[in-house]
Each structure stands twice: as C-alpha cells, then as structure tokens.
C-alpha cells in the first residue's frame, strides 16, 4: 500500500467542483480545506498507480498545482 498526501492549489471559484470530482477517484480522500487549498491523500497499490491518480488530479480543470507533501511506499514490491 502506498500512502501519499498532497496540497492541491485550485482556482478559488473551482475549488468546490474540483473537490467533488477528486473524491470519486479510487483511494482518494479529502481531509480538509485551507482557502483554495485542498488536503488530500491517495492510497494505492503502487507508486505507479499513485502517480497515475496524482497526475489525473493535477490535470483537472481548476487545479493550479498539485504539491506532493508526503509519500510512503514502504510496502511497494520490487519493480521489474
């Protein structure tokens, strides 16, 4: 299990919309909001999967920046 957390900067008017979409992604949880910043975690099976979701979040309309804050991947099995 890879657990990571993010602070997502949004365009303030789009903040609500972004957060409502984010929570539908698998493994994504919303933990709070500081003005236009969303505090989010992703739980996924691998780093690769994490990045897929993180990238998807970053590309959402209304997202300015997706800051990775912490990522724990101690359970990740070996690549190749």
């Amino acid at each position: 299990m890879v657990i990571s957390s993010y602070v997502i900067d949004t365009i303030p008017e789009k903040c609500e919309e972004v957060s409502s979409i984010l929570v539908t992604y698998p493994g994504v949880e919303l933990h709070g909001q500081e003005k236009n910043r969303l505090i989010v975690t992703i739980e996924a099976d691998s780093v690769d999967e994490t990045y897929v979701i993180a990238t998807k979040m970053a590309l959402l309309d209304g997202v300015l920046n997706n800051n990775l804050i912490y990522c724990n991947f101690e359970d990740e099995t070996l690549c190749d």
Partner: protein
Amino acid sequence: MELSRRVFVKGVAVAMAATAAGSLVACQDQTGSGGGGSGTGTDPGPSGGGAEAAIVKTKGVCRFCGTGCGVICEVKDGKLITVYGDPDNKSNMGLSCVKGLHLGQILYGDDRFVKPMIRDDKNTKGTPGGLREATWEEALDLVSTKLQDTWRNDKSRLAFWGSGQQPITEGYALAKFWKAGLLCNNIDPNARLCMASAVVAFMNVFQTDEPMGSYTDLDLADVFVTWGANMAEAHPVLYSRLTARKVSGPGVKHYDITTLRTSTSKTADKVLMFRPGSDLAVANAISNYLIQNNLYDKDFVEAHVQFKEGAENLGHAYEDGYDASDAGKTVNDVTGIDFARFSERMSTYTLEYASQISGVPAADIEELAKLFGDPDKKIMSLWTMGVNQHTRGTWMNHCIYNIHLLSGKISKPGSGPFSLTGQPTACGTAREVGLFAHRLPADLVVNNPQHRRYAEAIWDLPNEYLDAIEAPGKHTVRIFRDLSKGDIDFLWSCANNWAVTLPRLTRYLGKNPEYKGIIDAFIVVNEPYPTLSTQYADVVFPAAMWVEREGQYGNAERRTAVFEKAVDPPGEAMWDTWIFLQVAKRVLEGTMIGSTPAFDHLFGFVWDSATDDLIADQREVNRRLFNEYRIFSNPDLNDAAQAINKDSEGKFEALLKMENKQLAPYDEYLDNAALTWPVREVDGKWLATTWRFAEGKQSEGFDEVGIEMYGDAGKPGGVSFYKSAGKKPSAVFRPYEPPAEEPDAEYPFWFCTGRLLEHWHSGSMTRRVPNLDNALPEALLYMNADDCAALGISNGDKVKVTSRHGSFDITATTDQRVAPPAGMTFAPFFAEEALINLAVHDYYCPLSKEPDYKKTCIKIEKA
C-alpha cells in the same frame, strides 16, 4: 502493511499536508499585509490558542538531518506543544517529515539527566549502572583537573570528539578553546564519519568547501541522479521536493545509482545497480564517453578546468600505522597534466569495461552519459553516505565533479553536483568553524602559515603563537584506535553517541581483551539522555538540548539559521557553551597569553567579571561569539586580518579571499529568515547567494558581489570560479581500486549500513518518541529472499552476523523496504540492542580518513 501502521502513516500524511497547507496560506496572508518578519512572538497558534493562555511562538530548526528544515515552535505554560514547518524558511517552505513532526517530544523523554553524574568505579563501565549524582562544582573541578593533568603531561594523549550537531557558536567557542587555548589539534567531529570525503574533495577540486548550488535546483532540474543515496528515507523533505518536480515537470527523469534497492529506487525511472565500490568505474565511463564522443563542453573546459592525476595504488588502512606508511604518506600527491593525458587515462573506462567491473548494463551507462552530453538538459547529482563512506570516497567525489566539470553542468540554476549532508550542522559547525584535527575556522588549515597568521590576527594572539599547532592532530579513527590501545588518557565528547555510531566497536568498546583502553581512560560525555556512550563515561554533564538554549545550524545548502530558546532545560541541565567555558576557565588558570591571563584574553568578551560567570543573557553570548566568528569571513572588520587576506606585504603566495564565505551580522539572521552564504551587503541590505560563482544579480541569488571582487565576468557558462587556484577547479583522474574486503568463501556477503526514515542516527532521541518507536521498533537485517532460502533462514528468524571484526545478533527479514540483490545485506544502525557496528570494519578513505560503513564482509548463521 498492518492496520496500526497504516493508520499511523496516513495520520502522518494528513498532518503534514495540513501543516503545509496552513503555513502556505498563512505565508500568503503575510505577504499580502507586507509581513515576512520573524514570525515569532505571542499570538494564538494553529494549536488553538483562542481565549486560553497565549501561545508563544519561536523560530527553530529541525534537530535531525542535514536538510535543515526551519520549524516554528509553540510553547504554552513553559512547555513545547507543537512544532511545524516554517513557511518562511526557504529550505523547506513549510514542509517537514515525520521525524520533524515529532520534534517536540524529543525533549520530554522521562529519563533526562538532570544533574551531573560521576562514576567512582571504572569496573562498572559498559553497564547501565555505576553513575552517581554530583554537584556542578564537583563535576567541573574533577573534569578540569583530569584535563589539565593530561594537558600538562602530554597533549597527544587527550582528545575531543565533537559533532555536526553542536550549534555554530558552541562549536566556535570550543574550537577556540582547544586550538588557541590548549594549543592542541586533537579535536575532530563525528562529521569525519559522514562528510570528510566530501570536504577533502571540495578543497582539492575548488579550494573551497561546500556546494555551488542549492536546494532550489531541486525545483528546476530535468534529470536527477542519486549516487548511493537513499534520499526518500534520509532526506525526506528534499526528496519531496524532488518528487514534486518529477510529478510536475514534463519529462523529468530520475536515475538511481545504487548497490541495493531502496525507497528511493522505487520512484526512480531507472535503477543502475552496481557492485560495491565500482561506482568509480561507472562515473569514469560517463566522463570517458563525453570525451570520446566529443560531447563535453569544450568552451567551458577550456576556460574553467585544469587537469591532474594523483597517487594511486593506495592500498588500505588495515594497520594502525597506515598513515605513516609509504603509501599512506603520499595519498595527497597530485601532478598537473594536460587534457590529452587526462583523456588517455580515462580511455580505459569504456562502457564495456565499466559494465564488466560494475555489473551495470553498458546501455544504461550510455543513456545517462548522453543526457550529460545534452547541452539543453539541466542535471543535478545528489549524493551522501554511499559516496562518502567509501574506501575511495574522496576519489568518488572527484569522479562526480569530473562529469559535471566536463559537461559544464555546475553553478547553474537546476544543474550541478550537490553533496548532501547527514547532520543538521555538519556544514555550519563541523566544517565551517573548524572542528577538524587539521582545520581552523572558515576553511583555514593549521599547516598553512598564512592561515595561522590570519587566525592569530583575529584572535589577537602574538605572532607565530599558533605555530605550536602546525601539525594536524589525530583524526577520528586514530583517536579511537589509540584509545583502545591505552594511548589516550582523556576523551571528551558532545552531541554524539560514539559507542553506537563508531565502526569496529568490538575493539573500541574493549570487548576484545587486547584493547581495554576505554576502561582506563577518563571519559567525559555531555548528554541529555542515558546512551551507550554514557555507560562508558566517568563524568556525564547534563546538557540542555535543542531549543532549550539558543543556537544556530548551517545546513547542506550553506544556509545559516538561528533557533531561539523556547523552553528551559530540566533540572540542573546547562547549555554546552557554559560547560565548555567553565572548564576552560579552570584549565587555563595560570596560563598567560602575552601579559594577560589566557582565559580573559580568549573569552573575556563573553564573561561577566561581576558574577565571574558566563554572561547570563544567552542571546548576547551568541551574538558576541557569532560576531567574532564572522570576522573570519569579513576581513574588512580587522585591519591586521585584512592585510594578510590581501597579502599586502607580499609575504605569502596567494590572496586568501576570505570573503568567499561571508556571513552577515548575527541580528540579520534573527530579523530575517535564514540566509545562504556568502551573504553580501548591498545598499544596506544583506543578500544571500543561491548559486556561487554564477554571474547575475545578487538580488536574484547570483554571486554578483563575489565575481566583482575576485572573478571575471563574461566567461563561458557565465561562471567564474574565483576561489580556485588560477580560477580553475581541478578535474583529477581517479581510477577504480578494489574495496578493502571482498566476499569470499568464509565471509560471503556484503554488509551495508545506513538510516531509515523513522529514526535518526543512534536513535537516542527518536526512540524516545512513542509514535516513531512503534512505527519502526526493531532494527532488522534486510536480506535477499534467495540468500535466505539457501541458508534456511525464514522471515523473522534470529541470525548471528559475523565479520573478521566482531559479531552481533539481529532479526532477518525479506521485507522489501530495503531490497538487496543476492549477496548483499543491509541493516540500520539506530538500535543498540542490535549493535551492528560491533562487526563493521574501520578501514577508511586514505585521503579523508572517513571509514567505509558500506562494505564489510560477513557470514550469516541461524542463531
């Protein structure tokens, strides 16, 4: 992952994000209102001050790793209640790692030393008991008498083992006491175990210690190369910046060059797994590829690089007399050569040859070499213990610089070689104030007469007074080898836990009947907590820790930061500066410098004659010590020093260019955020330098003032290495030479040691934090599953590990957190109950004298 662990990890992830988000928002708000001051004072903090008692905020710096994250401490009713990332600190911008989140708790373990302790019976050494409480007077008098006796009898039989965790002013006062007061060079820091190879290479290549670039490069690079560095666990916040860049920058790549898969390998785009010790061959193959394929930056090389080769076939420090042997005496020899000769020497290192030595596929080396050959790619190399703790550690540092010098990827935003550090102030204190056996403050060395004259000028000493310390003292391994043989009578240490972190502990701790010196020697330890080292102490001074006093740290990007005193130390614990000067006052009694008592001469400016004690105001003591120390890098503050700096009388061979490391007045660091040196005064403002030797505006972080003073503008690459001899750093050819031990039938496995995220160094602080202790309660031996199967070892079995130097018991695991290839093993060194250093050898890099903790050969048996 077990549920409890998962909950813990997720809690940390959320807490960190919340902290960062909160700080970032706060930071924006401040900017809006024209704020940006120190951010300290009294106001309700995020912990929810509200109508309750006011929360006092002070500025701090994390106590742990070399990242040097700025933190804000919140104090309520005299107790530290919260610590979180400081958004004003440019090193971490509000982030902190899991250890940082638990910083406050390190002060509140329930077994702090609150009184001085004395051991009356040496036979109790090495046991948890045997120490009794004493008064300060008794303990100080006893230590001073022992030190004075040894000092008067034979200075070579005393030693101080300092630390890259001692604040800058404390280290400075200590260095001055030892070098100018005792006229003794037997002082060395634990940084010898982590940064010495980096230091020697910096001096050899650039004639200045510490990196050209900064952490900002992490936000800008196109390619990251980690050389034997598990940043994800050992430098977590920097790794977050790296991964954030990877996630946000298009096409950003990360190559991890390593001997075993770590958490850092897991996110890398490519892992280049090499045979231990063969990284020199891989690096040389990259340099050779650049030369052979005309991919090096010709204009840059022509303008900025000189070439050398040096002494080779150095052998290894198997014997105590190595340094004085024929090989040992010549290790620093180098000769200037031309580029043709350099290329010819390098030409052996074809991709195929390097691949044969290292096991790294030739195509992978070529792929990386091509990136270095691409003028449009910004590349950052990052390394730490894998390169430094290496029997050819200095050489390996050289090999990395060779690549960056050949490709011109240095001193440019987003591009450069970056040596990471392991401790919060390995740079700021151990290196910059001169705690090494061969150094004086600010990169000066004892065996250079011009350097001694300069230090004499600042310390107001008679001409040639420091000639008494012309010969470098004993380095760390020598100190402890000598101690074990009974050749050291007095040893004092501070801010380290040598009985866990030194190599070859079977010998050093007297577990071997030939080596009982540790029992007979008089040992003094300044410590907040009982550790394995205090079990060998004759006297323990109870030390104030971290923000229980004011101090300063200097991190890996040359950033000097003040941490304010936030709370009082418990019981009778005192700060180390007070302890050092109380002892200095007693030991120097009766010694004169010219016509004044030595102590008054050296430390009168921080001593209150009315109370006959250190000035009570800690801020003032720090300010005075720092402002004297900064004269070393501001020669215009002292006419005699300036004359030597400029060589006004033509007595010496060169200008010293001491402004190269210029520091600002103390109060600048209090009023503003931490600053990266050189700090320059421009129009009445002190401005930091982000990229040394790079042309551009000082206000934008470039080295404008330095280049104006000593360099040349308009050179290729927009850089001028004004501190280097002839303004040209040296590319030195360094060949691959085999490690000190290689696996054989009797000891078939490599054993590599290191750190893991939850615990810092010997665990004396982090293991007292329940959350961290629960998250990683035990040090494990990470093994390859095939090796385990072959030996009939199952996950969780107790095993006995034996090397030529000692043995220890530990639990084996095939957990993939650290995943060694067949033939390789790994264990962290935080746990004294699995004391891995009993078996680790102490063979060191012949140039830096830094031991290699990564390549001991072992056998493994089921216990």
